[in-house]
């Protein structure tokens, strides 16, 4: 998960001033990074967060020591920016009133988990850990490297997230069984 084939060449070309190479990097990783930001900061903020991270990445491309690790570098930037954005949003709104911005696509049908609502009950870093564990399938060490925390903290975040979700899942399960 540390790098995608071809990233090193694209990074080298972008460093050489090729705008097209950087655009290719954006196109390659956009969806994956948006998914990460969406799990952490929600639908309404995710794409802005990722776009800002790409703009910063362009300016700091010279500082990237391992061009092949471009994706890992971006995941780290996006995860941290999304956590910051989510924390800021939760400060700006009263706790408990945090609702996901309206998504024009149809919501979960009967029997489906309301994932966005469940994630909203977790702390931003717990959401990041859940996404990187479940969706990206990363090890605790890899997750720790992305979030700037040690593997033990990753395990603690995951445990707390599961503890918090357990009663909600039981309630959802009971509701699904009734319907």
């Amino acid at each position, binding site marked *: 998960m540390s790098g995608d084939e071809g990233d090193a060449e694209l990074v080298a070309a972008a460093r050489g001033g090729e705008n097209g190479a950087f655009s290719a990097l954006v196109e390659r990783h956009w969806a994956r990074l948006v998914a990460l930001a969406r799990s952490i900061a929600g639908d309404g903020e995710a794409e802005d967060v990722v776009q800002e991270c790409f703009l910063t990445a362009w*300016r700091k491309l010279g500082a990237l020591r391992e061009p092949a690790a471009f994706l890992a570098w971006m995941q780290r930037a996006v995860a941290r920016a999304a956590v910051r954005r989510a924390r800021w949003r939760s400060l700006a709104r009263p706790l408990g009133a945090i609702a996901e911005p309206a998504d024009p696509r149809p919501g979960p049908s009967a029997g489906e*988990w309301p994932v966005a609502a469940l994630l909203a009950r977790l702390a931003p870093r717990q959401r990041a850990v859940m996404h990187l564990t479940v969706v990206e399938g990363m090890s605790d060490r890899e997750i720790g490297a992305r979030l700037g925390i040690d593997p033990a903290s990753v395990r603690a975040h995951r445990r707390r997230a599961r503890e918090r979700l357990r009663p909600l899942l039981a309630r959802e399960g009971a509701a699904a069984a009734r319907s």
Partner: protein
Amino acid sequence: MEEEGDRGARLGDALRTWAARPPHRPPTAAAREIRARLTAHPTSAWPPRHGWAWATAGALVVAVGLGGLLRLGRSGPGTEAPPVASAAVPAAAPLGDGEVLIWLDAETPLFMTFAPPRGGRSTGGGS
């Protein structure tokens, strides 16, 4: 009744499906937008221009510092100190008893007056 493990697995599947939804902006549109923003702000051009700005500022600081050092070298501690009581120094009023005049520089006199403590008995502290 659904078991806890099943619920966890179902949540995992749901999270993966939820995360796999395509973004609102497709990758090509996002790349185009980012490229437009990069070309709209020339400061974002590669190579970054802040590097040159910082280098210029640094060179300026070094030049000013070197200039200051050279000037200090010319009038350093080894050279003769400017005369205190010369024709350039403005005339001061005659000093009274216990008065001291110190010239901080050619134009800045500092007058100090020493007097015994009130009551005529010294407590050991100066004034």
